[in-house]
C-alpha cells in the first residue's frame, strides 16, 4: 500500500495493487496477497462450489483480505478485459511483493496469479482444482519467486497429464488388440 497526504495533512493509506519491494523476510504469517473473486454467474454449479468454500479458503489465509465481487462488479470488470469472459468464476491473487533478485522480463512484470474455474464444467473437478490451488498457495506463500513456482507447478501437472494420456492410450490399444 502506498501513502499520500490528504487536505488535512494526514497521511492516508492508499490501496494499491502494484507490487513493491519488501525489506523484511517472508514468513508464513506475512500478509502477501489480495484475493479477488470474480463471478458473473455463467457457470452456476462451479460458482456454487466456489462460494461454499470461500470461508474455508479464507480460514487458511486469514492474513490476506478476500474481496468477493458482485455480479454487477464482475461484469463491469470483465467488460474492461473481455478476453476473460467465460473463464469466471475466477480467483485472482495479487502478490503485494516483487520477487527479489529475479531479472527476467517475465518475472519483472509479474503481478500475481489466478485460477480460472469457469473453464471447468464439472463441479467435482473444480473443487479438486480449488484444493490444489489452496495447497499451492499454502506451500509457496513464502517463495521468493512465485511466478517460477507457478511455472514449476504447470510443468509438474503437464508431466502427470502426459503420463495419463500414455496410460489411456496404452489401455485403448490393449482393448483394440
Amino acid at each position: 500500500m502506498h501513502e499520500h497526504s490528504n487536505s488535512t495533512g494526514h497521511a492516508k493509506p492508499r490501496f494499491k495493487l502494484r507490487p513493491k519491494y519488501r525489506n523484511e523476510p517472508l514468513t508464513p504469517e506475512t500478509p502477501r496477497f489480495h484475493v479477488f473473486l470474480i463471478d458473473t454467474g455463467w457457470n452456476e454449479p462451479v460458482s456454487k462450489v466456489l462460494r461454499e468454500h470461500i470461508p474455508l479458503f479464507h480460514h487458511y489465509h486469514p492474513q490476506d483480505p478476500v474481496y468477493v465481487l458482485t455480479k454487477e462488479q464482475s461484469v463491469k470488470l470483465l467488460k474492461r478485459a473481455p478476453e476473460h469472459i467465460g473463464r469466471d468464476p475466477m480467483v485472482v491473487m495479487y502478490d503485494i511483493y516483487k520477487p527479489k533478485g529475479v531479472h527476467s522480463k517475465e518475472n519483472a512484470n509479474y503481478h500475481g496469479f489466478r485460477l480460472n474455474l469457469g473453464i471447468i464444467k464439472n463441479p467435482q473437478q473444480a473443487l479438486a482444482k480449488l484444493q490444489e490451488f489452496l495447497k499451492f498457495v499454502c506451500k509457496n506463500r513464502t517463495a521468493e519467486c512465485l511466478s517460477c513456482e507457478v511455472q514449476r507447478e504447470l510443468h509438474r501437472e503437464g508431466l502427470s497429464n502426459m503420463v495419463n494420456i500414455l496410460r489411456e492410450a496404452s489401455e485403448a490399444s490393449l482393448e483394440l488388440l
Partner: protein
Amino acid sequence: MNEEGGVPILPFLIGTLILCYFGLEVNRQRNKLRTIFNVFDREESEIAEALEEWVESGELKPFELAPLH
C-alpha cells in the same frame, strides 16, 4: 502397400499418426492447464485500477470471516 525390400509404409503411417495424436493431445492439455492456472502481469492494469478504485471508495469490502462450524 508394402513393396518387397521397401519401407513398410503402413506401420510407419500408423506410428506417425499415433505420435501426432499424442503430441496434439499433450499440447491441448498443456494449453488448458495454462488457461486455468496462470500468472498475470501489468498488461492487466485496467482491472487493477478498477479494483483499487472500488476498494478505496468502499464499494468493495473485505470478506468477513465467520467462525467455522
